[in-house]
C-alpha cells in the first residue's frame, strides 16, 4: 500500500528579497527547480554546504514562506513543526510561557500544553530558570528549552535544522538518544545537518543540495558517499590550485 503523502514540492524555486534601502533592492536565488515528495514515516536528510538553501527548503516545507515559482501540495491537516536553534522564543516571556506558546501554536489547548510542562522542565534540566525571561538565558539554556519542548510536542512532520549542538556533552548525548527515539518509528522527519553521521543515524533517504539545486537524491548511504567524495576531491583540487599558485 502506498504511504500517505504529506508534502510534495513541484518545480519549486525561491527568490529571497534582500532587504536594504528601497533603491538598492535586489533579489537572490536560493532554491532552483526543486521537486520532492515526503510521505508519512519518511526520514529525509538534507546535506549541503553553507548557503546551499537547506534552511530555506525547510521553511518552504513548513509553509513559513511560499515559493516564488512552482507548487507546494500539502495533505490537509498535516501539522508541521520546524525545530531550529535560536528561533521560536519570545525573549520577554519566561521559559514556561514560551514552551506553552510553542505547544499552542501546534494546535494544543492551553490546558494540554500546561500538562506537558513538568516533563519539558525535567528534560531540559532548567529547574527554576523556567520562570525567568528567556532573554536572561544562555545560548545553551535556550537550546535545551527549544529541544525539550520540541521533543514533547507531537506533530505529523518534524523539520529539524541543525539542532544537536545542544548544551554540554552530557546533554548532547541525552538529546541524541531522545531524538533517535522520537524520530524513529512512524514519525516523518526532514533533517538538515552538517553532520553526515547524524543524517546516517536517523534518515533512510537523503538529498544533496548544491547552490539551491538537488545534486543527488536517493538512498542515504549513496548520497552521503557521493557528497563526501565530492568534498574530498574539492579539497584536494583547491589544495592543488593553491600549491601550483605558489
Amino acid at each position, binding site marked *: 500500500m502506498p504511504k500517505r503523502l504529506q508534502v510534495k514540492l513541484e518545480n519549486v524555486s525561491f527568490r529571497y*528579497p*534582500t532587504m536594504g534601502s528601497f533603491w538598492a533592492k535586489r533579489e537572490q536565488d536560493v532554491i532552483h527547480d526543486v521537486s520532492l515528495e515526503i510521505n508519512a514515516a519518511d526520514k529525509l536528510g538534507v546535506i549541503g554546504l553553507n548557503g546551499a538553501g537547506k534552511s530555506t527548503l525547510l521553511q518552504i516545507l513548513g509553509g513559513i514562506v511560499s515559493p516564488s515559482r512552482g507548487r507546494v501540495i500539502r495533505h490537509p491537516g498535516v501539522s508541521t513543526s520546524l525545530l531550529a536553534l535560536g528561533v521560536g522564543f519570545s525573549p520577554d516571556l519566561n521559559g514556561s510561557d514560551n514552551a506553552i506558546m510553542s505547544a*499552542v501554536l501546534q494546535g494544543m489547548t492551553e490546558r494540554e500544553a500546561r500538562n506537558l510542562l513538568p516533563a519539558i522542565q525535567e528534560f531540559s534540566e532548567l529547574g527554576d530558570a523556567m520562570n525567568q*525571561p528567556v532573554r536572561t538565558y544562555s545560548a545553551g539554556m535556550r537550546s535545551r528549552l527549544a529541544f525539550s519542548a520540541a521533543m514533547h510536542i507531537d506533530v505529523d512532520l518534524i523539520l529539524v535544522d541543525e539542532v544537536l549542538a545542544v548544551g554540554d556533552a552530557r546533554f548532547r548525548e541525552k538529546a541524541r538518544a531522545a531524538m533517535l527515539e522520537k524520530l524513529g518509528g512512524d514519525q516523518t522527519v526532514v533533517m538538515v545537518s552538517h553532520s553526515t553521521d547524524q543524517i546516517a543515524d536517523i534518515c533512510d533517504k537523503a538529498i544533496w543540495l548544491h547552490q539551491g539545486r538537488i545534486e543527488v537524491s536517493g538512498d542515504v548511504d549513496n548520497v552521503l558517499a557521493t557528497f563526501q567524495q565530492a568534498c574530498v576531491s574539492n579539497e584536494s583540487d583547491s589544495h592543488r590550485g593553491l600549491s601550483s599558485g605558489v
Partner: protein
Amino acid sequence: MTLSQALRFIDLRARMALRADASTMYLGYVWWVLEPLLFVAIFYLVFGIILESGRADFLMFLIVGKLPFQWFSGGVNSSSNSIVGAKAIISQVNITKALLPLSKVQESTYRQMAVFSLMFFLLISDGYLPSLHWLWVIPLFLVQYLVIGFLAMICASLVCAARDFAKVIQLFVVGMMFASGIFWDVRSLDPVVQSMVLTYNPIALLIDSYRQVLMFDRVPDVARLLNLTLITGALAAVVFLLMRRANSWLTLRAIG
C-alpha cells in the same frame, strides 16, 4: 488554525505579554491605572489650569476623553511593531500574521478594562450617577475594539512593508490626540465642521459618544455609530483577508 484556536492564541499571547510586562517593573500592574491618571493630571494642568478651559466640568470631560483615547493610542502604537517584533514565532511556524496585531489589541483591551473601571469610579465619585444610558458603553466599547483592531492590522502591515511607517504612525496618533476632541468639545464647533469631524474621525465620534452617555445622560449618535461599525467591519474583513493572502510576503519582510 481554526477560528477558536486563533482566538485562544490571541488571548493567550495577550495575557502572557501582560504578565511579562508587569514583571519587569517595580509597580507592575499599578501602571495600568497610574499611567492614564498621570496623563490626565498633565493635561488638566496645561489645559484646565494654565490655559483655563472655562468649563466647570473640565476634569471629568478630560477624563472621559483621554482615557478612551489612551486605549486607541496604546493599541495602535503597540501593534505597529507586532509583526516585525515577532520574528521568533513567524520564522518557526506558519501563522496568520493578522493575529499578531490583534493580540496586541487584546493586550491593550485588558489594560483598558482596568482603566474604564477607574473611569466609572471617578465619575461616580464626582456625582455622575449610573443610569440606563451607561449601558451604551458596551456597544461603544465593541465598536472601539473594532476600530482599533482594523487600524492595528493596517499599521502592523505597513511597518512590515517599510520600518519607516513606524514614525509616521506615531505622528498620526499624536495628530489624532489633537484632532479628536479630548481637551476641546467637538459640539462647540461650527455645525458643518462638527459634522465633518464626527463623520470622518471615528475616535472623535467615540469620545463624544462616551461623554453623551456617561456625563450628559443622552443617547449617542446611533446612525453615525452604525455607519462606522458597518464600514469598519467590512474594511477590517478585507484587510484580514489581504493579510492572509500576503502571509508569506509579510514573513519575508519581517524576518529579512
